[in-house]
């Protein structure tokens, strides 16, 4: 009967539902466990990253603030007793003018500008304080005298006038003010004399010494003589040159190599061999590239040691496998339908690749480039081997000049003996480096999303 059929069907369905239900609890539980493990793993990873950032930030933030002295400087004609600056029109030829100018500058250089500095400091010292000249001069940074001299050379009319000048406090003074050095330590362990310390406190109390943003960190090059004014500018420019070289060299070579291997090379044992080798190169330790660079670029090609050009070339070699692999992956991901459509229109193979396939892969290539460059930015080991471990105090004018790089600068500062001053400064430099990387990655993401939206 029909009803029997229906009841039988219903019973069967109920039995099936029972079976499914009995297994459901276990399945849901497994899923919850798996999800929990996933979340725990992410939390752990993020936790470590957060720890790194928090630690760096905590250590580095203080370094962005530095002590400055606000002084009234009197350009005493008694001390500055050289003649007026030579004027070009007074001389018969430019060569004569230059010779006179040089003489005038040399005379200025031989003056003791520290006396002018001392005078302006003494003006601010509270009355009755016993302090020697040397002790007093330990408060401003040692290159303050050069700063005053440069001001005068630029503007000789300052003679006899008093103007307000901001001078960086010395590293030791800065340590004392920030409390980076333990105030309870005895005189033998302190860097500054007791009198100097008292004066600093007095300066802080009456506003002669204030804490301001440490522009020096960004606008100055590295310095050993005047540690308080040590900055990242030289390292920045060196890294910038290297990044530019990497972008200009690695991207075209890498993309072209990938295109050739993927589109044009006949499938043979040789191309397989090349592919395997490129994949392995991506995993080679970066210091090996440094050795290669030292051997080939410096020893054989005699390029200048410690130049951003050499560093850039080494980093290019390092980044090349990454870009090749990423480009190849992107090329493989282009749908065959697009290629067929282009070929069917009568496009030649080259036209198909450059007009159709490459534009589609551009977002991926761009991302790989920026990630590769960001990675190269942080590489230290290969740079050390090509000689970038030296202390360089000027901004490189060309990629062939001696330079240093951000990670190397961090390494050098980490080794400086004035730990109290350089510990936070190193952390600050690391924060700058991380900041650059974050900006680069952000640019990559932004550009990629813009490009993908356009397509």
């Amino acid at each position, binding site marked *: 009967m029909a009803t029997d059929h229906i009841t039988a069907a219903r019973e069967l369905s109920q039995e099936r539902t029972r079976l499914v239900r009995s297994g459901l609890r276990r399945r849901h539980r497994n899923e919850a466990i798996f999800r929990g493990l996933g979340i725990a793993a992410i939390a752990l990873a993020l936790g470590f990253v957060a720890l790194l950032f928090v630690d760096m930030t905590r250590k580095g933030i203080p370094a962005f603030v530095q002590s400055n002295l606000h002084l009234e400087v009197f350009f005493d004609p008694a001390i500055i007793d050289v003649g007026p600056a030579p004027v070009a029109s007074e001389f018969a030829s430019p060569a004569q003018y230059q010779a006179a100018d040089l003489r005038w500058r040399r005379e200025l250089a031989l003056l003791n500008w520290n006396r002018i500095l001392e005078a302006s400091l003494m003006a601010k010292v509270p009355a009755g304080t016993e302090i020697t000249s040397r002790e007093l001069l330990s408060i401003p940074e040692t290159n303050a005298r050069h700063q005053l001299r440069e001001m005068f050379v630029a503007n000789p009319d300052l003679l006899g006038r008093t103007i307000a000048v901001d001078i960086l406090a010395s590293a030791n003074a800065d340590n004392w003010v920030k409390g980076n050095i333990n105030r309870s330590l005895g005189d033998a362990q302190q860097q500054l004399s007791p009198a100097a310390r008292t004066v600093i406190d007095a300066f802080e109390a009456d506003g002669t010494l204030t804490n301001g943003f440490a522009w020096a960190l960004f606008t100055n090059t590295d310095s050993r003589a005047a540690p308080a004014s040590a900055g990242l500018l030289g390292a920045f420019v060196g890294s910038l040159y290297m990044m530019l070289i990497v972008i200009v060299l690695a991207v075209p070579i890498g993309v072209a190599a990938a295109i050739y291997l993927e589109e044009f090379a006949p499938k043979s044992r040789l191309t397989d061999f090349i592919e395997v080798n490129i994949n392995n190169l991506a995993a080679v330790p970066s210091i090996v590239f440094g050795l290669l660079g030292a051997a080939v670029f410096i020893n054989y090609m005699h390029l200048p040691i410690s130049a951003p050009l050499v560093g850039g070339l080494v980093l290019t070699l390092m980044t090349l496998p990454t870009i090749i692999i990423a480009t190849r992956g992107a090329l493989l991901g282009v749908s065959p339908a697009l*290629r067929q459509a282009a*070929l069917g229109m009568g496009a030649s193979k080259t036209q198909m690749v450059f007009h159709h396939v490459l534009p589609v892969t551009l977002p991926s290539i761009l991302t790989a480039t920026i990630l590769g460059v960001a990675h190269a930015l942080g590489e230290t080991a290969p740079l050390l081997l090509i000689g970038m471990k030296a202390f360089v105090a000027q901004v490189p004018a060309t990629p062939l000049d001696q330079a240093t790089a951000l990670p190397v600068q961090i390494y050098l500062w980490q080794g400086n003996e004035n730990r109290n001053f350089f510990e936070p400064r190193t952390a600050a430099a690391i924060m700058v480096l991380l900041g650059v990387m974050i900006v680069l990655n952000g640019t990559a993401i932004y550009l990629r999303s813009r490009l993908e939206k356009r397509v």
Partner: protein
Amino acid sequence: MDMLAGKVKLTQQSVTSAMNPSAALDRPIRIEARDVTVHYGAKQALFGISIDIPDRAVTSFIGPSGCGKSTFLRCINRMNDTIEGARVGGTIKLDGEDIYDPALDVVELRARIGMVFQKPNPFPKSIYENVAYGPRIHGLARSKADLDEIVVSSLRKAGLFEEVKDRLNEPGTGLSGGQQQRLCIARAIAVGPEVILMDEPCSALDPIATAIIEELIDELRENYTIVIVTHSMQQAARVSQKTAFFHLGKLIEEGATEDIFTNPVHKQTQDYIMGRIG
């Protein structure tokens, strides 16, 4: 469907062809294939195909999956050259010239023989760029005005212009499936080919879009020779004047469409079109 209503014009040709569809087969032969074989590596896919394709008519290739009809179609514009390990034997002549002659430039051949694929694949560029690309790379336009002219007329011939005329700079991939396929047809026409090959052009489209494309094919055949591969016999019956039935890499039967579908000679053809177990 006003767009369709506007297209009903009874030319002398369409009346004649309605009364006598096989008259199309008396036209001159455009493409001559003799003993064409195709090997993919060690495996043979086509066994000695010989067929004539008449001028300015629609020839359809039908047959079950894997019978070689698409493979043969791709021999005509040498798209099989792009497949690694594919070897083509026999001769195919377009207007008497052997298309596999080493002296013949494949790029030029593909400008004379256009192709439309199964899944619409417009370039990820603007609609204008899609249609303009072909004429540009083949140097068919002397100026921007020329190029505009070609783009507009191709879109018109493909029945797409009215729908996209205010958005020529929008990406081609933003159109519906049927529109995309018509864009691909416009793109193929823009190069001014003599022959258009279509590989299952409607299989990814809904019935209305399919009907629009079939109407388009009807109009196009006044000026172009069309070869269409289709797995729908009804479509082959509706659209073509000559039909060829392929099975397991061999050409079993070919002839006027109405003869094939009312009174086929070979039992295999009969079984296939009647939906019988062979």
